[in-house]
């Protein structure tokens, strides 16, 4: 059997509806195992707090925002479910890319109308805004929207509605980055 040819014939992605069901089951599993839902921005936030705590421990301890994430028992800030969730997401995503033939050489995917540089700058600005927004909203699309709605939180529903609603509106102004 020529597997290389077979792989090329496969769809590049899972059926989105089936993927959605799997995501829901994953969320259920995380609530069951860890007692809390998924999160993506949490691991980045904890990494940031770790760096600040390493460089300026007094500042981190006195700061209302940072001090919330520093364990009182002296254990590592990174010893947290969110960090391991992010590590699992990274390697799970890698496995998915391998199985569906999306794994190739390191590359920057972008619209043919923009350069790699523009794509990276736009992604960095978008990431910056998303990171800030996720902290104002007390969670990102995974932590607040997905996990929040799964727990029937009104805040989670609001985040979901505004995140995607505003996303649709703003997409018009930045459409040339993609089409």
């Amino acid at each position, binding site marked *: 059997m020529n597997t290389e040819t077979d*792989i090329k014939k496969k769809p590049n992605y899972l059926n989105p509806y089936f993927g959605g069901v799997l995501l829901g089951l994953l969320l259920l599993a995380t609530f069951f195992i860890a007692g809390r839902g998924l999160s993506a921005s949490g691991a980045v936030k904890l990494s940031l707090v770790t760096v600040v705590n390493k460089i300026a421990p007094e500042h981190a301890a006195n700061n209302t925002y940072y001090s919330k994430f520093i364990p009182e028992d002296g254990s590592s800030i990174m010893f947290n479910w969110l960090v*391991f969730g992010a590590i699992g997401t990274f390697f799970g995503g890698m496995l998915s890319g*391998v199985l569906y033939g999306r794994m190739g050489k390191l590359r920057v995917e972008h619209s043919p109308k923009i350069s790699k540089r523009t794509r990276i700058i736009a992604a960095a600005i978008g990431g910056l805004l998303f990171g800030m927004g996720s902290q104002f909203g007390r969670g990102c699309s995974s932590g607040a929207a997905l996990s929040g709605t799964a727990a029937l939180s009104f805040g989670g529903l609001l985040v979901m509605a505004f995140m995607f609603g505003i996303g649709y509106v703003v997409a018009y102004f930045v459409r040339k980055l993609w089409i």
Partner: protein
Amino acid sequence: MKEELFVSGRNIPNIDPYLNIWHWEIPVYLFLGGLAAGIMFFAGYFTIMRKEKEMQATVKYAPFLVPFALVLGLFALFLDLKHQLYFWRLYTTVRLESPMSWGAWTLMFVTPLSMLWVASYMKEVFPKWDWKFNILNQFEALAIKYRKAMAWALMFLAVVLGVYTGILLSAFNARPLWNTSILGPLFLVSGMSTGLAAIIWMSKSKYERKVLSRIDLIFIGVELFLIIHMFMGFMAASEVQIEAAQLFLGGEFTVVFWVFIIILGLIFPATLEVLELRGFHIPIWIPSLLILIGGLLLRFVMVEAGQITRYLY
């Protein structure tokens, strides 16, 4: 006020109740020694099997890493010594009952031999290479002539070196975690696996990577088997060894051991290697890097955890 003086034999700083003498230098050295042993073993093996042409990275290119790995490892070991200027005294005696003596002498033979092996391939790898002196050219011709004999010696010494990296710890009977005869074969197999990972990373030949990935899968399987049996041995042993195993079964080394060494350092890269063998495209550096990091962490964890396990309470 009543004053009391307690005299106890248990207050020996850095020795008892916890050993605190081996830091990063030892696991780095054990890792580099194992890596070098793995590369040398397969360079020798495929030379003896007359597969030099098909296995070029294994026989020619990867061995260039070995002298660097050994010298860096020895330098780490040197940094660890309390009385550094007396290191040469290891070479004034042969003590068969001492693993350190075995290691010192093995390294004394294996380091120049690995350099000789590399020298015999210098002109093939760097065609413009010139030894400058005629005597060196004659020496090179001699090394090429006796390459097969060197391959046998490399294989034998690689096994001794690989086993010794584990026995160095297991001979330390006073620490329950290290007091198991499985450490020698475990570190040997792990060293072979990290050596294979490094060669696979360097190889540009599909055939060579396929052969090496298959061998690596066997080694990963054996490594998992040995780890399971090591824990079974601990759990069936005395209370102190059960407590030593508990460090990995709910204790402070649980996460780093099971997540980073077993899953990300062995099972996940093995899965990627299986997928690659079945025709899926995988950037080869990913499983190799994971195996190398897993191997390094295994040594860090075993050295660190072993020092805090003890017999006397």
